[in-house]
């Protein structure tokens, strides 16, 4: 993700605040469609399609992120066709019930919102995102903490991996960590992390840390940022507030 976000690419160079605003705006608009407004919601695919293309990202590569979200959403939506059986639409001779429609809408919303979040982090580095948050006056304590979590995430994940590997070598064929080892194993990892935090704090103090990190980003908003913001805000608003799908459909049918 970090490598993707730090590419020399013009979407990555767009101001992080613009991308953050557009992402939230898009998610709010997408989830604001009512449960039967499948046609309107389908049109919202325009944003991820275009941004994937503009940012030169793989659309299908991002779809694997859905493996976490979709099962839960499916679990919630799968019951809709059983409880809402009223036919609300006819596709020729086939009647489509409200439950089927609301289930499809729910799943599409899940896909679109996950794709929008992916587009944000695949084009915006964590420091940039934190810079955007600081422009929104999010307290410094939280921003510093967020950056540290992100920075040490991989370090501690590797350490946890080493600990579990060592355990597996001593207990071959065992699924997970045995009950007796729960406390010492995780407790040792916690204490090591605690001591690491102490060392990190001392190193930060030696480098002049006074409660906040400073962003290296220079310059404010450029013309390209305004154009990008205006273009997508307009397109998304039109797709949300005007019945574009209905108009195009009537012209064709």
């Amino acid at each position, binding site marked *: 993700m970090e490598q993707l976000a730090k590419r020399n690419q013009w979407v990555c160079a767009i101001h992080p605040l613009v991308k953050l605003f557009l992402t939230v705006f898009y998610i709010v608009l997408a989830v604001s469609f009512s449960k039967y407004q499948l046609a309107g919601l389908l049109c919202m695919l325009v944003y991820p399609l275009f941004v994937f293309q503009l940012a030169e990202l793989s659309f299908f590569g991002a779809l694997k992120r859905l493996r976490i979200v979709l099962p839960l959403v499916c679990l919630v939506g799968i019951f809709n066709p059983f409880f809402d059986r009223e036919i609300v639409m006819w596709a020729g001779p086939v009647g489509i019930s409200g439950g089927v429609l609301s289930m499809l809408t729910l799943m599409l919303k899940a896909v679109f919102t996950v794709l929008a979040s992916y587009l944000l982090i695949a084009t915006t580095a964590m420091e940039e995102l934190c810079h955007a948050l600081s422009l929104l006056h999010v307290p410094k304590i939280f921003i510093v903490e967020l950056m540290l979590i992100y920075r*040490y995430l991989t370090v*501690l994940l590797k350490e946890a991996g080493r600990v579990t590997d060592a355990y597996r070598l001593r207990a071959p064929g065992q699924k997970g960590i045995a009950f007796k080892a729960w406390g010492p194993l995780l407790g040792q990892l916690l204490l090591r992390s605690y001591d690491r935090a102490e060392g990190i704090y001392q190193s930060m103090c030696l480098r002049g840390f006074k409660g906040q990190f400073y962003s290296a980003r220079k310059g404010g908003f450029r013309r390209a940022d305004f154009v990008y913001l205006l273009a997508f805000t307009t397109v998304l608003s039109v797709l949300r507030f005007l019945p574009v799908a209905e108009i195009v459909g009537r012209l064709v049918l």
Partner: protein
Amino acid sequence: MHMADALVSPGVAGVMFACSGIAAGYSIYKVRLEQDQKKIPLMGIMGAFVFAAQMINFTIPGTGSSGHICGGMMLSAVLGPYAGFLTMIGVLLIQGLFFADGGLLALGCNVWNMAFYGCFVGALLIWRPMMRKGATKGRITLASVLGCVLTLQMGAFSVCVETFISGISELPFGAFLAAMQPIHLAIGLVEGLVTAAVLCFLSEARPEVLWGVNHEGEKEGRLSFKNTLIVLAVAAALTGGILALFASAYPDGLEWSMEKVAGTAELEAAGGVYESAAKIQETAAFLPDYALKGSESPIGTSISGIVGALLVVALCVACCFAFRFFRRKELQ
């Protein structure tokens, strides 16, 4: 228990953002009061530790399966409720953005469901009063198991309420609740046992690391263990009352579908709470529905609409391909 963006309406998400924001603001104020610069790096590293701990699978005795922890209660027992709460927000934000577990819009809900209950209720109402007389293995285990079970139950209940008010699922509230609460009872129990094992280890290896533990000679606090039990009993009675209210208003899934098949209008009779919820949904709806004049369907979706939407998407795909074609040509 992470809620996805698709599971909440903008109105519910906004309200939950406001509630979580107030709790976060208060936590920042309390952490600043401590004036402990060392705490900020500690919060960051402990947040990363939660991710690492979630990677480790623990064997659940007698089942042959395994699970992992959420870590809210454990964080609070080390960092305290305020710093723990802020750390959990960071963890949930990164989970939502980088792991697609949760989401930006549902962040307020997730913070409330997992961090608020775990840190504020678990640490302030359960952990601290129980540790007033010092930490023993029994007290730590009881506080951990009780804290994790209770806070996960509250979180699961909130998930049901938020989804129900958002109007996302057709599943009756009672049936949804009946599915969510028992699962989270089991999860809470396992999480409580893992938390207890770790905190017992810490109390033996490095007791000064634990937050809120009364060391010898310290003055006992205002809220005694007995008073805590009374508070918890009242909270349980209130929660039970609310649950009973919903349970009596809505039949379970099986009854509901039976009535649907039999053709009775039982569901309409339980309209009081439903109508109120519908009114809340109506007023909280961020954007109203739309429909063309003379549209074939009053719900705003028709076959012509869907055909139109598919055409718009196809047009976009064609534009993207054309864009890519010309760019490649330009590069060559």
